[in-house]
């Protein structure tokens, strides 16, 4: 499994842990080819992530949902027949390969190995050619964004949540794949480049959950084609060897969060040491957590994003804390 360390990801990430990036180049796809799960593999593994795929081998209408791996370059053909292509015609930073998802209700990415239970730093996202051209020009029941007057406040929104042991995070990261909501139409846009989406605020996860929503919705559901593309998913390695047991379901709760002067940490296990790291991985404070409520004073800590890591015998648990 190829591991890529990107300088950019390092610069904006939590140095206390190592990182792994899935760039999908390891599939060595020839240009203009794709993998849609027809081999029944059930998905695609790269870096420390697994992209599930469901392929239904219906004799008349074989179809897939979830993820595909694509090196297709067609940015001009409209419609379903060009469902694998990204509107960039290539992967991030000129690479050839990326991943395209068809979101049937929701798509998921599983975090594996050292990344499981850790935070995901971020990923690059762009539109599929299919959705992009449908929003730009209209496609059957899908409207051209802005509508006939060009004034409709349309949007195509990607919502990303973290899931940990089956529990969905309350927080989510929203990314507009197209946004026509501004009253000034010159600010309307449909994403046509790879855009970095920071996911570190979602906290620890063993799965990422992707949902699409659109302003163009009819009685039959969303009219905009439910596709988008990703590349370069950077996961954290939890700073421990890959065979170290990771258990992040320790029920830690921090509130208020964000905070300015103190935080309450709810801890329901025997006493365990905790450390607060800044975004550069520098240890700011140490504290022994005892069962029940623990008070953490952060009066003197500069504003920023911090991580509280608890070292429990069952593994490491990390929570993000934002100090304002």
């Amino acid at each position, binding site marked *: 499994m190829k591991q890529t360390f990107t300088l950019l990801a390092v610069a904006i990430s939590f140095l206390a842990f190592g990182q792994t990036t899935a760039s999908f180049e390891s599939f060595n796809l020839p240009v203009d080819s794709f993998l849609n799960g027809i081999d029944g593999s059930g998905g695609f593994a790269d870096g420390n992530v697994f992209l599930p795929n469901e392929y239904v081998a219906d004799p008349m209408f074989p179809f*897939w949902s979830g993820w595909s791996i694509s090196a297709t370059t067609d940015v001009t053909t409209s419609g379903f027949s060009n469902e694998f292509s990204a509107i960039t015609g290539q992967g991030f930073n000129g690479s050839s390969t990326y991943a395209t998802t068809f979101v*049937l209700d929701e798509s998921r990415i599983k975090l594996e190995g050292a990344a499981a239970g850790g935070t995901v730093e971020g990923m690059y996202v762009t539109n599929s050619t299919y959705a992009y051209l449908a929003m730009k020009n209209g496609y059957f029941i899908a409207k051209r964004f802005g509508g*006939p007057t060009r004034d409709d406040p349309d949007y195509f929104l990607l919502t990303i949540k973290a899931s940990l042991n089956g529990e969905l995070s309350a927080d989510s990261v929203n990314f507009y794949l197209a946004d026509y909501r501004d009253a000034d139409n010159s600010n309307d846009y449909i994403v046509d480049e790879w855009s970095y989406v920071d996911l570190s605020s979602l906290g620890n996860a063993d799965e990422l959950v992707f949902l699409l929503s659109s302003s163009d919705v009819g*009685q*039959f*559901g969303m009219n905009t084609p439910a596709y988008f593309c990703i590349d370069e998913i950077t996961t954290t390695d939890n700073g421990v060897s890959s065979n170290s047991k990771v258990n992040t379901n320790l029920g830690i709760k921090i509130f208020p969060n964000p905070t300015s002067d103190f935080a309450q940490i709810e801890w329901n296990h025997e006493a365990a040491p905790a450390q607060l790291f800044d975004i550069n991985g520098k240890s700011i404070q140490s504290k022994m957590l005892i069962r029940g409520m623990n008070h953490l004073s952060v009066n003197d800590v500069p504003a920023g994003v911090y991580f509280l890591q608890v070292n429990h015998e069952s593994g490491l648990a990390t929570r993000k804390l934002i100090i304002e």
Partner: protein
Amino acid sequence: MIAFSQLADSIALPVVEVEAPALRSNLTGTRNEQWDSKKLNALSGNNLSELLQQESGVFIKSYGIGSSATVALRGGSAGHTAVLWNGLPLQSPMLGLLDFSLMPVSFLDKVDLQYGGNSSAWGSGAIGGVIALDNKLKEKTTSVEINSSAGSFGLLNNQLKAQYNFGKWTGITRLFQKSADNNFPYQIREDLPIINQSNAQFEQQGILQELYYLPTASRTGFGKGNQELSIRFWGQKTDRQIPPTSAQTRSLASQKDESLRGSIHWKSIQDKWIWNAKSGLFRESIHYQDTEYRIDALSYFWSALGEANAEYFISENQQLSFGVSHIWTFADIENYGTPPQQNRTALFGAFQQRLKDWTFQLNSRYELVDEQLIPTAPSLGIEKKINRRFLLRGKVSNNYRLPTFNDLYWNPGGNLDLLPESGWSQEIGVEIPPNPLKGGLAPESKAAGKVSSPWRSGGGLTLFNRNIKNWIYWTPADGKAFWTPRNLTKVWSRGIEVRVNLQKQIGELKGEISAGYDWVLSTNQIAVDRPDIEKGEQLWYVPKHQFFSNLNLKWRNIEFAYFHNYTGQVRSPNDNLLEDYHISNANLSYAFHWKQLQSRLFFATNNLWNTNYNIIEYRPMPGKNYELGLRLKFKKNKS
């Protein structure tokens, strides 16, 4: 039964049928409207959807000029109107409907719009109503008729009809050709630029060849002791581009529709019996192409139809009708795995009893679809004459619509477990024929010259109620990337239809106004997730309010007609409300005769007030537009 048509003889008078309406048609107790050849002649450049909209006020779901048009009768769906051509059903077995924009009025001699359920006579689809299109030999003459017109946006419209006789044979040949660039300008909003509609050209061509053999007919007409054999062939081709919606940048789509229809009818009128036997063979194809989306889809079907029925006059007050029909259909498109076939056999019968001022008619139909028996569809119609001016009527009927081939066999998603949509309909009404029933504006009054007539008035009021269960919707299949049709909901339709007719003659000026108002509630009675439908919600594209009026004025050789339509707000499947609108057409014509040549010059303005409106969401319609035309008819004197 009143045909609220026309201004005296100038445009048309209801045709006096030699024979009474066949029991087969099951008209007792129900409302119907008819247009005869005279009226159809005046609108011969139009298609059936335009005729119905202008003359009956029914809601036509038109995607634009030249684009497909279906009819929604009494809050039903497009598949809830049965369409008959000389008694043979025309709806596509694949879609369960007929595109009315493909039916040229010049190929029809009579149109009969029967409101309400009539599955007991005509089977599947006759839920909202039946539209019966007929060809008839009216008289044995030799004539040639040419209609030509040209209009805005490249409209060219030509029809030819020639009738000729060889002994006991009469032939009628009709040709039509219609084309338009249809590149009309439209504006979404006043501050936005004007756009010219693109990719909207169409061209239609057709031929209808009829041969009538009347071995026994006397010159006075077709009556008892006569036989008639009629053979018809109808070939038609339509090439049309599919224009973009206003929410699309462009369209590169096009569609070719081709139809071939052949039929043979034999009819014999005996002393107490009328015998009918007919058979038909139809083939239709649709070739849809979209180079932008790489779509190239050819679909076609074959139908072979046969029917025999008899009407027996038991006594002066009792009449019986019975018959059997069989339809075999075959259809193919890439999306069907194995091309499906279907065999439908039906037995139907009717009994009519008259008792003083009362008329009762009981109909029933038994249909076997492949191996499956469709539950019996009966109906009971009752009429009572109150006095010379009032006719009370009512009807109760059970009706159904079979799932279409697409519903059953489309791959992916086709659902073989679908049940027919079915349910009961009721209607009651009062009919007031224009008075006096004779005299006034009837042809003989012409001799009276400049005599003014009193006001003549007529009208009608109808209340209807209908429940249809097992209403079919396509809905996303569980956990699948495709959709499947299911019997999802019940639809309750009810409404009021009001019609008024006024006529007056002042000297040489004759005038007529007919007007109608329809109030229709057609609501889903079961909430559905996808499509997202709430209980009690009005169906998409069914206006609650519709109003229309027709004004006709005739002075000497000059005629003026003005049509006004109001269509209330409708909801689209995107849950957007489409605004209500008023549209008007006007037509001025001048008739002149020279020896055996009759001619008429006309000038028509459509959408007179240049209304910006949408019938279907995002489908722009043309503003004010014009048509100028000339009709010539040469008729040989009877020899």
